[in-house]
């Protein structure tokens, strides 16, 4: 496999070199014809004009497509700038420490207080819980899917994963609300089953597809020789898959987990329906409110320009910072992986 890849690369490199030279000589020929020969100046002039028109005709699509490409950058900049501009005032007014580490959120009380530590901790705990449940199941499924499954079951599992990824989050929320919430209520004899536990279970299911998909890709990229060597040394196939393949694909698996974390921390609509939406400090069997659900639930009635509304933007900003950190980790993981592969 390796030598084939290399020759492919070389060929492609050569191809581009050849085309580059062709283009160069094409440009050169046009200019070389012009100087000196007095009789040909008129013709050359016309040619030049034609070339110029053609060049302008080529420039227009180029510029248009460049603008399209830059729009993506503009969107990112607009999102960051607007979140910062609208998130800073409330933080400034409340005080950064009081805002981030205050434990009481009472935005509509007569003497309002805006501490979002409960939201941050809930988001962190909820995501951690989802990872603890979702990663083992997702990873095991990925190993089975990538290494052991016969064609037919593999096709079934692949379709199932694809469909799980496609189900809208409100549908997860609805099923969780109707099945999980009463179930937890009866199981633990609570007054309401809308708890952090319900949200964790829903999130765990929702991050499964991302974990499985990315892990499967990473596991399938593990060179066969590694596994063959391990089996030749007397390991069973399951041992090989779990100890050799998973280890070789660890950076890909790590990025699948980080991706899952990103999905879980940003999810709003599914968990707003199952988590009870009360600004408690988090507890497994308490009604809680996440960063995302705090925004979703209060934004519709917060008056424009009020401190409450501005504080919601600040929560958005904090969430954005979290997401950026997660993206940063993901990027370094992916970069580390590609450079690691080049070395080996």
């Amino acid at each position, binding site marked *: 496999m390796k030598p084939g890849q290399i020759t492919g690369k070389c060929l492609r490199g050569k191809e*581009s070199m050849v*085309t580059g030279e*062709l283009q160069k000589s094409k440009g050169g020929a046009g200019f070389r014809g012009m100087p000196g020969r007095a009789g040909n100046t008129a013709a050359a002039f016309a040619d030049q004009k034609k070339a110029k028109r*053609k060049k302008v*005709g*080529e420039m*227009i699509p*180029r510029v248009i*497509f*460049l*603008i*399209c*490409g830059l729009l*993506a*950058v503009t*969107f*990112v900049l*607009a*999102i960051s700038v*607007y979140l910062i501009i609208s998130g800073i005032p409330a933080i400034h007014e409340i005080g950064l420490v009081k805002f981030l580490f205050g434990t009481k959120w009472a935005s509509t009380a007569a003497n309002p207080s805006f501490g979002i530590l409960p939201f941050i901790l809930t988001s962190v705990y909820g995501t951690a819980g989802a990872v603890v449940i979702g990663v083992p*199941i*997702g990873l*095991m*499924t990925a190993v*089975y899917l990538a290494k*052991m*499954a016969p064609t037919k079951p593999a096709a079934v*599992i692949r379709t*199932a*994963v*694809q*469909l*799980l990824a*496609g*189900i*809208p*989050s*409100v*549908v997860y929320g*609805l*099923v969780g*609300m*109707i*099945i999980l919430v009463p179930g937890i209520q009866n199981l633990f004899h609570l007054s309401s089953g809308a708890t952090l536990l319900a949200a964790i279970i829903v999130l765990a299911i929702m991050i*499964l597809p991302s974990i499985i998909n990315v892990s499967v890709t990473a596991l399938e990229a593990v060179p066969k020789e590694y596994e063959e060597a391990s089996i030749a040394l007397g390991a069973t196939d*399951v041992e090989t898959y779990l100890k050799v393949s998973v280890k070789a694909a660890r950076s890909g698996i790590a990025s699948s987990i980080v991706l899952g974390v*990103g999905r879980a921390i940003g999810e*709003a*609509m599914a968990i*707003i329906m199952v988590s009870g939406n009360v600004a408690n400090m988090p507890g497994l069997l308490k009604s809680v409110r996440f960063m*995302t659900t705090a*925004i*979703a639930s209060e*934004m519709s009635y917060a008056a424009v320009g009020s401190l409450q509304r501005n504080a*919601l933007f600040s929560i*958005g900003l904090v*969430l954005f910072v979290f997401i950026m950190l*997660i*993206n940063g980790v993901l*990027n370094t993981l992916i970069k580390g992986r590609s450079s690691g592969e080049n070395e080996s």
Partner: protein
Amino acid sequence: MKVLLHICAAITVALLIFLLGYIFYRGIPNLTIPLLTTESSYLKNTIGILPNILNTLYIIIVTMVIVLPISVGAAIYLTEYASNKKLVSIIEFATEILTGIPSIIFGLVGMLLFTQLMGLQQGILAGGLTLVMMVLPTIVRTTQESLKTVPRSYREGAFALGAGKWYTIRTVVLPNAMDGIVTGCILAIGRIVGESAALLFTAGFGLVLNNFWHALTSSSATLTVALYVYASERGETDVAFAIAVVLIIITLLINFLADFAGRKLKTEK
């Protein structure tokens, strides 16, 4: 250990079967013709989801009309034109960031940008513009991938025959990358149909039947938002399950279409 692997794979499949089975079991009995063909009325105390079905359709149209040229253009720039490596990596980095941003943040920024700053009313237009930012990376990525699979020799052949770059792209490269663009569109439509958090404050909660032009600037709930409203604010779980069935059917259809387009892409190349 082997058993455990089997069990986990089985759990994944069982989850899906259970979810689909339960939703169909609860939803199909409530999926009546009047529900699908009328609008909700407080006077007659009836509930209908026709407005929400139409709103979903409207928002797909608005978003796709805007996002398709932009994202295909961006992909063409990245694969065909760009010579500046730094610029390419900046644009690609930006699309990666856009993929990672959660939808509630898009909702917040969409509300700030389109309803507050640009003065649009809550409605399909503001919602659609918000979704444009969200689904842009999806189409850019699939288009880029399929542009890359168009053999270099095709382009060289066209250049050798004297065709200009834009002419080559228009007549040779794009037609050969069509399947990838179609797949991207299908995936994007899937995301639009399933989206809710980004639309809460941009497209709004309105459950009234509007025509297309009116809906652009009046609060209009799509199917997902309507599901949320009926389930958690009005306590109408039967209606919510009926909507869930409609959503699941659309999801199944989209998955099937995307699969079909993807397979066609593979066999033709």
